[in-house]
């Protein structure tokens, strides 16, 4: 079992080099998939029988929502790795991913809200999905605010790690209770995306968009992590050399 790989993973310099090689391919693939997905979803996918063309918002709402949730999971995993194995890189990941996740949640909420207007007639509806998304946004804000409030970097790292883990344990509980609350107060449940069967012409572009969003997330995360690593290891010689080469 190659523990050396795992320990190398903790080395910021190794991370910077490897991510540098990965970056161009990731960027190319993500942008390409995004372009394909957007064009397909906007122009070539069929419109929905009930919702017409506003249905096309699904091609950004669902990827953003999926990413918002996955990102929080990732925060918790990074938190655990950081606390258990004391890996600095895990904390860098947590620090950099949190704002991305928050923006994704924001996009999911806004697109969900915009989609709601032609579908339900209102810009906001306290349904289970949107409400859970809103609570998720608050959870993200909490982590970001906690990090900003603590000045000592190590303390901030550990505190946000604990908070991310606490959050992730609570998310299923919150989700269940919001779902249940929704059935109490709204007799009919209109689920935006759970149609009985979406034909492939509709879910294939969705799949492309989801993968594209994941790619863009990874791309953005790597870019932010690389910058943060350069900032943190500023005094190291390899950082100085890289910065000199880049100018």
């Amino acid at each position, binding site marked *: 079992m190659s523990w050396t790989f795992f320990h190398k993973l903790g080395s910021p310099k190794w991370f910077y080099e490897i991510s540098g090689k990965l970056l161009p391919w990731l960027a190319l693939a993500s942008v390409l998939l995004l372009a394909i997905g957007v064009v397909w979803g906007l122009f070539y996918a069929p419109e929905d029988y009930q919702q017409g063309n506003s249905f096309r918002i699904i091609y950004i709402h669902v990827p953003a929502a999926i990413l918002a949730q996955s990102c929080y999971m990732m925060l918790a995993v990074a938190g655990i790795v950081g*606390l258990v194995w004391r890996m600095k890189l895990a904390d860098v990941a947590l620090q950099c991913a949190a704002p991305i996740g928050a923006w994704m949640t924001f996009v999911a909420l806004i697109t969900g809200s915009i989609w709601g207007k032609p579908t339900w007639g209102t810009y906001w509806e306290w349904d289970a999905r949107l409400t859970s998304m809103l*609570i998720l946004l*608050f*959870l993200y*804000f*909490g982590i970001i*605010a*906690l990090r900003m*409030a*603590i000045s*000592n970097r190590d*303390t901030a790292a*550990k*505190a946000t790690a*604990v*908070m991310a*883990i*606490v*959050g992730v*344990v*609570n998310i299923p*509980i*919150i989700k*269940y*209770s*919001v779902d*249940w*609350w929704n059935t*109490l107060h709204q007799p009919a449940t209109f689920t935006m995306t759970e149609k009985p069967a979406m034909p492939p012409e509709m879910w294939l572009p969705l799949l492309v968009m989801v993968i594209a969003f994941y790619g863009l997330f990874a791309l953005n995360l790597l870019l932010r992590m690389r910058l943060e690593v350069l900032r943190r290891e500023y005094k190291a010689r390899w950082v100085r050399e890289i910065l000199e080469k880049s100018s």
Partner: protein
Amino acid sequence: MRQMIWLLLKREWQLTWRRPGDLLNPLIFFAMVITLFPLAVGPEPQLLQRMASGIIWVAALLATLLSLDGLFRSDFEDGSLEQWVLSPHPLTLLVLVKVLHHWLMCGLLLVLLAPVLGLMLALPWSVMPTLCLTLLLGTAVLSLLGAIGAALTVGLKGSGSMLLALLILPLYIPVLILGTGAMDAALQGLPVLGYLLWLGCLALLALSLAPLAIAAGLRIGVSE
């Protein structure tokens, strides 16, 4: 072990009585927030009754949050927190004692005050037992979860309480939903045992997991 727990409880009790404000302020806050609502939406009893359980629960949430801010702060400042972290006794046990004391001094008192305020919000007597039982279980969860936030923000100077609220309020939502759901059922004359059992589950879950997070937070805060 039992003697140590008793000693700790006694110590917390004595400390609390030196600052009775810490005891009374959350209760007064609770009452005031509830009083704001009839002033804001009008005193019509039917409307108030519809909103009553929500108002009482939200006010209880906020009052508990406010009282939690200083939970560990005085111990942090005088160095006794560091002693706790370094002591051979399990930190989780010490933490549980602290939270138990907080619940007795805050949550329990809220439970005693709630029926009076509920009457002012046009709640019928029949739902008062449900109100008290759900609040009893709920405030236990609130104290446990809130202490996590208090531990994580213990070293912060300045606006720790606002950050505490930001961190903990999302976690309070399941308790809020269950508590008010039980009240709605009680108002309609439906059985509430199921809700109480669910609240009990949440309380047990919080009881077993929260101390770990609280202890972790305290260790982080002390090691700075």
